[in-house]
């Protein structure tokens, strides 16, 4: 048996993220060619290729590789999840929703292309995500691809992303939002898509049902963690550091973890979620689990 190594010393997270980020960006660029009508495709590309850390696609690829699959197998689903994430941001930023002017340090989609194009570009990205999975996934049994389609569909509709946004809108400005409601919003707005990224990767990589469930639980924890950290950063960082309007949650009277339980307790909660997430990975080969462990730590300790 090999001696146990300190994972952090052998695994270079930054180079892993930048390498995967480059592959994902190349694949996204290829997935949406600029064609007629140009303005819609430009608008789709504007938001999709605006940078961002590609956390969701990398999670998808890392989960696939963890269970023995390779990057190329997971790439179409990884791109799809980024398309979905982007479309939900485009629609959430609209004036009738969160009314955001700035996203990832750039004017939001509707600010550049107008509201009608923003709605259509979002719809088109949603559709493309499914088309891309169905057409571009290679070397995987159709049974598994069908499961992936179902997983993604469930995560983004009225039981997932949309439900989160609805409840978020409902409670905006309300003074009686409790932890339960806040958790509901975060789980649905953020965690389910991270969960489906990981689960899709696992399914495509050939995971057993038991492995899928472990990874599902891992993803659920880091999904909530992601949002708790977001809430903390919104209170502690400036707009410039975040690339979006900081303090917006406080200004619009949105409920956040720091507001409900204080900054200190929010940080403790984040640590607890990170521990719980990493416990799910105990059963996997530690060397292969290194990317996911580092991703969890990254989500917990990121500064923007």
């Amino acid at each position: 048996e090999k001696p146990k190594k300190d994972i952090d010393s052998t695994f270079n997270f930054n180079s892993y993220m930048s390498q995967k980020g480059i592959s994902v960006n190349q694949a996204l660029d290829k997935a949406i060619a600029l064609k007629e009508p140009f303005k819609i495709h430009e608008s789709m590309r504007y938001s999709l290729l605006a940078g961002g850390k590609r956390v969701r696609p990398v999670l998808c690829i890392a989960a696939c590789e963890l269970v023995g699959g390779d990057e190329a197998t997971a790439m179409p689903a990884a791109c799809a999840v980024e398309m979905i994430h982007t479309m939900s941001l485009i629609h959430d930023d609209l004036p009738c929703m969160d009314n955001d002017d700035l996203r990832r340090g750039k004017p939001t989609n509707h600010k550049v292309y107008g509201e009608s194009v923003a709605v259509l570009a979002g719809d088109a990205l949603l559709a493309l995500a499914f088309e891309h999975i169905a057409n571009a996934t290679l070397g995987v049994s159709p049974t598994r691809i069908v499961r992936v389609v179902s997983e993604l569909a469930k995560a983004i509709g009225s039981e997932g992303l949309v439900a989160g946004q609805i409840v978020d809108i409902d409670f905006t400005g309300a003074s009686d939002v409790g932890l339960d409601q806040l958790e509901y919003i975060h789980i649905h707005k953020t965690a389910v898509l991270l969960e489906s990224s990981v689960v899709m990767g696992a399914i495509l990589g050939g995971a057993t049902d038991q492995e899928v469930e472990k990874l599902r639980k891992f993803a659920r924890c880091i999904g909530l963690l992601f949002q708790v950290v977001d809430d903390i950063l919104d209170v502690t960082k400036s707009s410039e550091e975040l690339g979006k309007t900081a303090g917006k949650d406080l200004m619009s009277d949105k409920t956040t973890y720091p507001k409900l339980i204080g900054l200190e307790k929010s940080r403790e909660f984040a640590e607890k979620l990170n521990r719980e997430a990493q416990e799910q990975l105990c059963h996997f080969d530690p060397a292969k689990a290194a990317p996911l462990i580092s991703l969890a730590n990254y989500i917990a300790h990121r500064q923007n």
Partner: protein
Amino acid sequence: TMSMHTKFDLFTYWTSLISEINVQLDQAIPVKYPEQIYESMRYSVLASGAKRATPVMCIASCELFGGSRLAAFPTACALEMVHEASLIHDDLPYMDDDLFRRGRLSNHTVYGVDMAILAGDALFPLGFQHIVSNTPPGLIPETRLLRVVSEIARAVGSTGMAAGQFVDLNYSEESLVEFVQEKKFGELSECSAVCGGLLGGATDDELETLRRYGRTVGVLYQVVNDVLEFKKEQAEGGGKKNRNSSFAKVFGIEKAMEKAEELRVKAKKELDGFEKYGEKVFPLLSFVDYAVDRNFDVVGD
């Protein structure tokens, strides 16, 4: 046998399918928390009086090749969901700005613009989920299901219906009327015929024929719709803004009806190759005449 289709009772075929489709759509969208989104989705999808032309075409195409109706229902319902999703978004204030749809208030007029956008966003994936979760296992090979998903996604996407809506909103050149008609109205009809064929086991050549047939019938149906609407507008005064794509408005009623007859012949000609399937082609043939003649009222319960 081809001329025998005039004896085919399309009305009964269509209305009985409507009842079944309505039951399944009702079951596919149960109201849960958060209730508003489900109510908004149901308001549009279960609107009374919906003709369900899209799902009915899918089922008829599947049955043409001896496919089971049971295999086609989930996809037929999904087609209706994505159709409604795109109508909800098309009606929005910064799109076609329609206050009404099928004689009652449009979705955003009742539920608000934010809810209408989200109802559409939820109906698209629900459609895909409905297909992969509810198509009876064993009846359809999964590779075919994936082709159905891909077909629907392409039809609603950036080179399909979204492209049609975009061009309709932003351009008014006469030369683009046909493009808009094909994308906004031909695309989904084509998709529904092709999906039905895929589920029924059609060959690739047959799928291409269904593609042309479906597209032609979709455009034909809209050209005649536009004529009827334009006549009504002329009689009552007023009319819709933001619609550059009405063939009747741009080229006049006479030209539009000539176009309709042309399309009727073209659509029927596409079906020549299906003569070997006997009576099973009658529904598809009868749709073509119905699209022009509107010889009865299709109303669901």
